[in-house]
Structures are given as structure tokens and as C-alpha cells.
């Protein structure tokens, strides 16, 4: 009901979206907003799709990515070779399909690792405070003085090339970001006035307050994680491009690109498609991360 009916109200009533009770937990509100964000869902769908492509690569790729066919070198994209062939006659499309097994999963795994180690450090630092916090933060400051790409390069130099080594190197590079974020999030919850006065408001009320604070803190961490995945995917391909970590014949997208550099005038498709695939993957994650950010704080949309 209303004191005065207006066209705007009628429009909302018709759409049956008139939500009078604006009261539900912020966490659930955020979920609803996220679900309604079409670009974020699109991003998520693309990511899942790419993960599946990587998983079922042997079934999807029309050719074995390692087979070299000297009769079919540097061919432009065609019906038989969707992305064309490279200088050794290998089908680029198949190589890209298998490439989905590298950058994307590595990016995700590194973030999870980074969250566990870095987040753990951050939580310890925030929880214990004082000296422990100081020591951990000084340590992080030192690591931060080295640009993260450089740190990854150095670690790969020590550990050698290979998938596991890449994972360790990149996870190490993202630890400092995770530590800082988690530490900040815990501080946010810890210093909130409600938690401080927990004795006076009783334990059950404390749980209610936490139900409002924790989604926010978790939200910040999740947004950071989504951004970190994008950054990691770019780092993996960048490092592979310069020949550090995953090298030919591993069909990592960046490595494929580096092979194409020499043939850029003869066979531009060698450079176009792998890069496009990287861009689309990172874009998908960025869209999803963007949707997360809007869901958490719609005012700043």
C-alpha cells in the first residue's frame, strides 16, 4: 500500500519485484546481486567452460598437439586447422586446447596456495598482534621490495623449469598480497565496535554481528583472490613467453606466442590466436571479479 500511487510504483508492482522488507543478511543480499549480474555470470561460465576444455582436451583437440607435419607448415586458419598451423606443422588450435591445462589451473592453484600460506600468515599476524604482527609485516615489506614478476623469475631460476616449479614460484609471488588483505580483513572484524563490546551484548548477539561482518571480510578476500587469478594467468603466460618456467614443446599459451614471434609477418595467426585466448580467459576472470565487487558494494558500481 502507499499514500500515493505513482507510475514508478506501478511499474515495480507489475514486475513483482517490489521488495518491501529490505532486511536480510548482507551476505544473502550480495549473493542475489551477484546472481543478477549478467556479465559476472558470463565470466564464470567462460571460466568453467575453459576448465572443462582443459580437462577433456584429448577429446576436444582434433590433432595431437605434438605431431609435426612438414607438409603443412604456417598454414592460415581453415576448416581443417581452425587456428592454422605453426612453423613445425602443428595444429595451433589443438595446442591452444591443451594449453588450457596450464595457465588457467596454475593460476587458480597458485591463488589457493597463496591464500593458504599468505592468508594464514595474515591471520596469525592480525590475531596475535604486537610483536608477531611486526615481525611478519617487516618480512612482507622485504619481499614486497622486489617486484613480484622478478621474484617469480628468480624462484624459477633456482627451482628450474616445470609445472610444479612454476606453481611454487607464482604462489610465492602472490603471498604478500594475500597476507596484507587477510590481515586487513581480520583487523576489520577484530576492531569493530560490536566485537569489542561483546561482553555487554552477549554471545548470541555477537554471532549476529559476526554474521554481518564476516561476509564483508570474506567478500574482500574473495575479490582479491579473483583479481589475483587474473594477474597470475598473465604472469604465467608472460614468464613462458620469455622462456622461463614452461618452455616448448609445452603448449602453454605464452610459449606458443613466443614461437610465433619470428613468423609474425609470414603467419600472423600464430600470434593472434593464442594471445586472444589468454585475453579472453583473463577477461572472463576480470568480469567475474568485477561482478563480485559490484555485488559487495553496489553504490560504487
Amino acid at each position: 500500500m502507499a499514500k500515493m500511487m505513482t507510475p514508478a510504483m506501478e511499474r515495480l508492482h507489475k514486475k513483482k519485484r517490489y521488495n518491501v522488507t529490505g532486511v536480510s543478511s548482507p551476505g544473502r543480499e550480495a549473493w542475489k546481486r551477484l546472481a543478477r549480474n549478467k556479465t559476472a555470470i558470463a565470466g564464470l561460465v567462460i571460466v568453467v567452460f575453459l576448465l572443462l576444455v582443459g580437462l577433456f582436451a584429448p577429446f576436444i583437440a582434433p590433432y595431437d598437439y605434438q605431431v609435426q607435419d612438414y607438409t603443412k607448415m604456417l598454414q592460415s586458419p581453415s576448416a581443417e586447422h581452425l587456428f592454422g598451423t605453426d612453423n613445425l606443422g602443428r595444429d595451433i588450435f589443438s595446442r591452444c586446447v591443451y594449453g588450457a591445462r596450464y595457465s588457467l589451473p596454475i593460476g587458480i592453484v597458485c591463488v589457493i596456495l597463496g591464500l593458504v600460506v599468505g592468508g594464514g600468515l595474515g591471520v596469525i599476524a592480525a590475531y596475535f598482534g604486537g610483536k608477531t604482527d611486526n615481525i611478519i609485516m617487516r618480512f612482507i615489506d622485504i619481499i614486497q621490495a622486489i617486484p613480484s614478476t622478478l621474484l617469480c623469475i628468480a624462484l624459477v631460476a633456482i627451482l628450474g623449469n616445470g609445472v610444479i616449479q612454476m606453481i611454487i614460484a607464482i604462489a610465492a609471488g602472490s603471498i604478500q598480497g594475500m597476507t596484507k588483505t587477510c590481515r586487513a580483513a581480520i583487523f576489520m572484524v577484530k576492531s569493530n565496535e560490536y566485537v569489542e563490546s561483546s561482553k555487554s551484548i552477549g554471545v548470541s548477539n555477537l554471532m549476529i554481528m559476526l554474521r554481518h561482518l564476516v561476509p564483508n571480510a570474506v567478500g574482500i578476500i574473495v575479490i582479491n583472490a579473483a583479481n589475483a587469478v587474473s594477474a597470475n594467468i598473465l604472469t604465467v603466460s608472460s614468464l613462458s613467453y620469455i622462456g622461463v618456467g614452461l618452455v616448448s614443446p609445452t603448449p602453454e599459451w605464452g610459449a606458443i606466442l613466443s614461437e610465433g614471434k619470428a613468423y609474425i609477418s609470414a603467419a600472423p595467426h600464430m600470434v593472434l590466436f593464442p594471445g586472444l585466448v589468454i585475453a579472453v580467459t583473463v577477461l572472463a576472470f576480470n568480469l567475474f571479479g568485477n561482478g563480485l565487487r559490484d555485488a559487495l558494494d553496489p553504490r560504487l558500481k
Partner: protein
Amino acid sequence: MSGNKILEVRDLVVHYETDEAVTEAVNNVSFDVVPGEILGIVGETGAGKTTIGLSIMGLLPKPPSHVIQGSIRINGKEFIDTRYEPKSFFNLAAKRMRKKTDRHIEKVYRTIRGKTITMMFQDPMTALNPVMYVGDQIVEVIKIHENVSAAEAHKRACDMLEMVGISASRFKEYPHQFSGGMKQRVVIAIALACRPDLIIADEPTTALDVTIQAQVLKMMKELQESLGTAMMFITHDFGVVAEICSKCMVVYAGEIVESGTLEHIFENTRHPYTKGLFNSLPNLDEDADRLKPILGLMPNPMDLPGYCSFYDRCEERCDRCKEKNPKLIEVEPGHLVRCVHAKAMGVE
């Protein structure tokens, strides 16, 4: 009757429209402000008082807020234009005319904001620009409206600082170097710098502690008396109203439920809500074990009833109250009450 009224508000209706609901913030509000008088606007948080103030200033955030109808006349000039309402997304002609009229109104507003009418906001801690000298913030409002040299503006700003009890030597200091009460005085200095005809003060003392509150009120009263400025004093505290106002209106769920002079409201309270407000104040003379609050909560402005908004909490309710929205009834000259139980003048 004294000459021209500074402010005439008639039948003002303001809604906030979002994707999920429509908030009826102001529902059919009409009142006048005469030069030199202090009008108190009393109500709970969320009753719509600030929205009324912002509408008069033209400072409502345009995307969610929407003036549905009404008239706001400042010194005779009309500031609301609801002629062009785009009926749909593609009603481009209406949209264009709307934008044109909005721009025109905004231009006129800019000439009177800060000079003819000014507004002081609730929280002094955030009302001042943290990276500008406080003196410069006063100079800003002077330079916008008056054609004076920089030196002259500087001098006047210093005078304003002294007038509100701050040493002019603090001109070149930043807001964070002042306490809450001092910050509020700076805000007052900015509001008074161009000798406005009307000041809208939105709970200026709510964020201050009681002793500072008393000082600031005293100062505002003195300034008002010496400069003759009219004021709209928004508050939720009847004590403040008694201190400083001459007339008062009580707002509930976006409507005026009772208005009149201080005697009318304080000594001949008619509306059950106002009565409830007075009853809930702790009384030193009485020996009471418990406070007597008004039970219940104000109705959700997204879902207001088509009848009396106070019905659910009213102790004097009856079936007649649910028939339709009660109108304002004049129970004695100048004393208006929105209740079906109020007896109009001359009716017994």
C-alpha cells in the same frame, strides 16, 4: 501579517525510487516560513525531515529521488517544475525538456544557495573539506556571491570567525585541528557569511555533547537575533525546540501531524503522537519506575498505509481512523492537527 514570506511549501511529495522499492519520504507537506522566525521541525529519525530540507535547497540526489508534486517558493520564486515527466525510456522529447528545465532551475538555485538560503548539515566532523583551510572555506562562499576583492573577502571571513568565537589567527588551519564544537561553529560561520534570509539547520547539535550543545545553541540564538535571519531548526529534541524556536511542526512518516506555536504544541498537545513524545520524556517531577516510550516502530516508508500512519501505535485509535488518510484540522487559530479525533474550531 508581516510582509512577504521567505518560504512557502505546498503539497510537497518526494519519493526515492530504486530498483527494488519506492520510498515515500515526504507526503503532502505544506508550511510557511516568515522573515525572522525560527521554525522547529521535530520528528524521529527517518521521518523525512532532512529530505524536506534538501528539497528546499534543491540538493536531493537526482537519480533516486523524484519530486512527484508540489511547490516550493523562495521569496516568491517557484523552484519546482513537474511539467515534463518522461513516461517511458524512449520518451526522448520529454526527457530533453526535463533536462532543460532541470538545468535552468539548478542555475537559479546556484544564485540563492549560500546567499538567500543556506543549510547546515548534521555531522560537523565530515561537513568540512579536510584539505582546505577553514578560513578559505568561508572565503569560498563569500566570493561566489559577492563581488569583492580577495582581501575584502579574507577580512570578512576573519570577521565571521570572530563572530562565532574562533580567533581569526586560526584562519590557516585545517578542520582536523578543531574539535567538534569548533567545527560546527565554522559551519555556522559559512552559513551566515552572506547574511542569508533563511538557514536550514539539520540537527546541528545532535552530534555534540550537551555542554557544547548549550553553547552552540546560545550562540545561534544571539546571531539570529542580531542578524534577523529566519531559521528552520530540524531536531528530534523538544528541549532544543523550547530553547530556541517560536513555531514548531511535528513530522511523522513524511507528514506533518501537528503544527503551531510553542504554546499550542507544548500546552495544548492534541495529536496522540506528540502526546506520546512528551510522555516519553523523563520527568524529574514525577516518581516513575519506568520510562513510557511509544510502543512499536514508525511504519516502513516503502510500505505506508493508505490510512493514518500512526494507527498501529496510537492509543486513541478507532475504526474511523482506518477509513482514509486523515486531513489537517485547525483546532485553534494557527494550530493544525492531523487526526480524525481533533475537533475543528467552532465545532463541539
